[in-house]
């Protein structure tokens, strides 16, 4: 993995790495463009860091609840034709996906 850049900046390498992890084809021009745009996004988010939270206890979740669980009971699933109707492509009652280069199941 590439070295993290200083705050508020994002290197082309980092954008290329993220693009690869997301399996997005990004051109060289786009790398420059996105590096700038994403840096702006990070800057915006970084504003949160300016808030004084010294009196605030860390919050782990927006809802202060624990142990929300359901009993182990099976319920009907969706009909297969409905499920596969949402697939970009289907074959033999399965989702058909492009092969993924360089990786093995």
């Amino acid at each position, binding site marked *: 993995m590439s070295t993290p850049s200083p705050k508020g900046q994002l290197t082309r390498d980092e954008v290329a790495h993220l693009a690869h992890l997301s399996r997005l084809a990004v051109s060289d021009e786009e790398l420059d463009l996105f590096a700038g745009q994403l840096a702006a996004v990070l800057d915006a988010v970084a504003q949160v860091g300016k808030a004084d939270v010294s009196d605030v206890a860390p919050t782990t979740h927006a809802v202060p609840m624990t142990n929300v669980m359901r009993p182990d009971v*099976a319920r009907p699933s969706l009909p297969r034709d409905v499920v596969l109707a949402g697939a970009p492509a289907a074959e033999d009652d399965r989702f058909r*996906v492009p*092969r993924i280069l360089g990786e093995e199941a």
Partner: protein
Amino acid sequence: MSDTLVDFDEVLTRYEPVIGLETHVELGTASKMFCGCSTTFGAEPNTQTCPVCLGLPGSLPVVNADAIESTIRIGLALGCRIASWSRFARKNYFYPDIPKGFQTSQYDEPLCTAGHLDVELDGETYRVEIERVHIEEDTGKNLHVGGATGRIHGADHSLVDYNRAGIPLVEIVTRPIPGAGAKAPEVARAYVTELREILLALGVSEVRMEQGNLRSDVNTSLAPIGSLEWGTRTETKNVNSLRSVERSVRFEMRRQAAVLDAGERVVQETRHFHEDTGSTSSGRSKEEATDYRYFPEPDLVPIAPDEEWIDELRAALPELPAARRIRLREEWGLSDTEMAWLVNAGAVELVSDTVAAGASPADARKWWLGELARRANDAGTELSQLAVTPAQVAELIGLVAAGTVNDQLARQALDGVLAGEGDPAAVVESRGLAVMGDSDELVAAVEAAIEGNPDVADKVRGGKVQAIGALVGAVMKTTRGKADAGTVKRMLEERLVSE
């Protein structure tokens, strides 16, 4: 491409192995981890999915309470500390076996940590430290189309079945296990064997390895003897039989030794095990796959098991296999070695159930380690896979004890049971296998044997009592083995030997 291998014994003259195992267990819950879809094995593809396990927008997961309970029970059985606060995390990766783009797992806040499992091997005990036990969800199944091997190389495209996606999966991770030396492959196997026994005793999973209920990632590394640092490890993925666990460690030790001998470095990578050749081959590079960008799952609230619940679960744990073996060994009056044979044959539960069904421990042991082991061996299967129940074996033993059949006829009755003809008593009836009593037919057969072998009869009359065996044999032949040899001998003696 074939790897250069160093002879196993030679590896040990220069290197010290360190192993480690990550074992995945599919829980036997009725529904999936985060939704109510059924978990039935072998259903038609994509008939057990819903918006949650398909990762459709707007769907929200809800935790399966039984899965949490099972995970805690596994942790308790392994002597783990149960976290009072535990969270789920998203493990982000791009692969179509997970439709959501991430696997809901646990990261830095697992449910159970710091346990251990003692593994016995050839009279020695190896303590395997357990690093963590956490809960996550299983992935879908990919079928690669167009490739010759079903693997992705050469495949045109893949077909995915999401029935398995979202089934509760417990991951049990050991700490590195050094110091096993030549026993490293067997320790790895013995650990998975014992873990499987514990999971069976807990009743949390069917642990059918052939169905993929339990699969291990096996880490192996070598370091020069005396070295203070451990070597680079490889991770052999999804090894799904006990035998393969042992073989994969053995192979990696031999392969890595050759790499190191040549002055090269072992590449840290995932590898695949090949059942047919017992070898491993390089899988995808681990380098980028580890970039999972974990973060806390915002759609699930933390699990905070209270002390009371944990104590309740601890108190309700069943007798664990190690304690059970000691108790049964004493009850059955066996030596350590005799008990070890039963354990190795996978026959402890079978014998126990047979004894529970009324047989004596000695008879139960004799049948399972003798005739039944032979049948399993001939069929190339495990004892537990034979089409005969412990209750049926106990019934058969009862028929022998009552004198209804002798050992030979009992074996024929077993043939019938294994062929699906019914319970032993029914097979004895339908096949006409019952031993002849002191019947007219038997008397006639005895007389015929004496008349047919006058020389032998005379010898017996003349005091050569051991010659009676030939006459017993003749009677057994006429009656096609259905007579009781003891009865026949007694009847012959009554006629030929005068006190």
